[in-house]
């Protein structure tokens, strides 16, 4: 049985190298002008540097170009895609068909991963994007384990699933934090709205805290807890999911190294001896809980949850 890729989002090229040493086999990077909700900001030099480091270790580098593009954002896109192609990145992650069109025109050999975050919810549509040129579909985080496995069974593309970290619940083009501050007459500086401050929305009814920030792509509201299924990996591994992702948004590099090491150990242990993994699952979960920031609890997201409509 083949081990899945362990995909992690570094905060910097140096952190990328640390993650590779910790056991990551692929890195997802990018910059805010083209990609959404990234753990770190990678300019073109950083992309080249990360590719150089990663390829030396046989590790893949994917670049997020998954913003919702407005016409004016298309202007710089062909040049960026061309750059990524020349920099030898291993795939471009897209959600907007406008990116697909641009890649076809400027770098037809570039591999594509389809990731709209919320709308990859059935295997037919995953395969549809496969026929349009995607090699991989990144599944919506709102799916449960049975749905994920059914998609994988029927998929003609690689399937990527997030196993650790925060997920996005909401993206608005509006500057909702800035608007609120302005309404209150307490206009804070632009950096006051940024990721560097730990702002969150409190929902007293659910006693939940939703991280929130603004950037070029608008306002983002994140899940109240981090997904963590380090203790529930067997179905994904037996189901031959192609890539397991640790999303590092709003985490520091040190945390990511530790989380990556733990997932590396857990996956390797399962492949060596499933019984030992079974015995140590509580240990892995406890270790993750130990490194969680004090204000961030973990849960299993939608993996074991039913949703109605």
């Amino acid at each position, binding site marked *: 049985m083949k081990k899945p890729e362990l995909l992690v989002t570094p905060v910097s090229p140096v952190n990328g190298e640390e993650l590779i040493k910790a056991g990551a086999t692929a890195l997802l990077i990018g910059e805010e002008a083209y990609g959404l909700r990234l753990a770190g900001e990678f300019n073109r030099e950083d992309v080249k540097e990360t590719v150089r480091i990663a390829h030396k270790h046989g590790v893949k580098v994917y670049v997020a170009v998954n913003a*919702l*593009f*407005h*016409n004016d*954002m*298309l202007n710089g896109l062909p040049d960026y895609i061309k750059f990524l192609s020349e920099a030898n990145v291993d795939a471009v992650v897209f959600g*907007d*068909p*406008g*990116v*697909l*069109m641009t890649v076809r025109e400027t770098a037809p050999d570039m591999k594509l991963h389809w990731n709209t*975050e*919320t*709308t990859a*919810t*059935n*295997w*037919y*549509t995953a395969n*549809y994007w496969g026929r349009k040129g995607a090699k991989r579909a990144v599944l919506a*985080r*709102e*799916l449960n384990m049975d*749905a994920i496995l*059914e998609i994988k069974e*029927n998929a003609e593309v690689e399937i990527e699933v997030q196993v650790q970290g925060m997920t996005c*619940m*909401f*993206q*608005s*083009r*509006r*500057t*909702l*934090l800035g*608007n*609120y501050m*302005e*309404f*209150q007459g307490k206009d804070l500086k632009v950096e006051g709205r940024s990721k560097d*401050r*730990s*702002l*969150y*929305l*409190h929902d*007293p009814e659910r006693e*939940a*805290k939703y991280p*929130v920030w603004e950037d070029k792509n608008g306002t983002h*509201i994140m899940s*109240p807890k981090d997904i963590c299924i380090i203790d529930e990996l067997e179905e994904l591994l037996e189901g031959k999911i192609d890539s397991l992702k640790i999303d590092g948004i709003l985490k520091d590099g040190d945390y990511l190294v530790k989380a990556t090491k733990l997932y590396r150990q857990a996956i390797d242990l399962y492949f060596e001896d499933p019984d030992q993994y079974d015995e140590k699952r509580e240990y892995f979960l406890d270790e993750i809980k130990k490194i969680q920031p*004090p*204000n961030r609890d973990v849960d299993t997201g939608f993996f074991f*949850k*039913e*949703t*109605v*409509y």
Partner: protein
Amino acid sequence: MEKTAVKSAEGKRVITKKPELLAPAGNLEKLKIAVHYGADAVFIGGREFGLRSNAGNFSMEEMAEGVQFAKKYGARIYVTTNIFAHNENMEGLEEYLKGIEEAGVAGIIVADPLIIEACKRAAPKLEIHLSTQQSLTNWQAVKFWKEEGLERVVLAREVGLQEMLEMKKNVDIEIETFIHGAMCIAYSGRCVLSNHMTARDSNRGGCCQSCRWDYFLYEDGEDMTSSEALFAETDSPFAMSPKDLNLIESIPKLVEAGIDSLKIEGRMKSIHYVATVVSVYRKVIDAYCADPDNFKIKREWLEELAKCANRPAAPAFFENTPGYKEQMFGIHGEKPAYDFAGLVLDYDPETEIVTLQQRNFFRPGDEVEFFGPEIDNFTQKVDKLWDEKGRELDAARHPLQIVKFKAEKPVYRNNMMRKGAF
């Protein structure tokens, strides 16, 4: 692009290609009212595969009846099938689409490629329109969907006039855009607040509108063990509720831009709302196209629209990025200024007696206003009031009760009567 304007005999410019006025309808009654009041097309939901699971929605028989009714007016019916499907939703899809096609529906509004492809296979006569759920924001993406064989795309609510013009310039495809009604504040299809907060799938019709709730903005301390509210309890809480979209004053720009379909939101709204909004936009579009160079927006149109509004309105992204003034803080919608009081069933020109179906309490002495496609609005006081059997009433108290009184001017079946809400 086809020619959209000609010179009339008097040398006046006249717009020959009017945009389609597209109205919502949650049930058959609303569909008929929308068409009767001037909609060129109506979008409805079926029993499956659509969002708004709380709207009445149509059985196949009702769809067919709606199509037949619309046909008499030359109006088209579209069906929303715009969920993002999960594996379990695939079953029955093709039969469902065939049923829609057989009902004579003109097209479906779709977000998920699964349903697009199923429609091409199973119901090829249906036009395919891309739903706003796909958050379509650039011309390259428009081109993609054109190459996929779609007849029409509905733009994201975040797209402005300038962007629409660029899309029109770059791609030859029908473009539909929202002009009026409530809006998502998130990019459509990219919000799962409901999934997290209430375990209801927002992209399959379960949205609980949690973006309209109040929240409190906090900041965590450096050590992330303590946190602090950024505003006092007496301040208005953090809110994301957008004002409703209203582009009535921008209709000339939309017509000149050659936008093909202008869409009114609101399958959950009442027949009074649909009638009011549709009739006002009908008048504006017709007046502009008949004489664009001398067109002026009339104050009475704006006032008429305000009569059914339950939120303040704003032009959203049409020409700028909306700021805080286009959101609502500390308010959660308001009661409309007018109540729908009665639907005209009959009018006798000899006795001048109108027969109405009561839709809200009213009594003799109340000032009421009649409106409808055949008449100019007029107000009058209700004089003596009778029930169906001619017994005098002190008030029309019961919903759907049949009542009669003397109208001061002629009215027609399906005209409506409203009164100020106090």
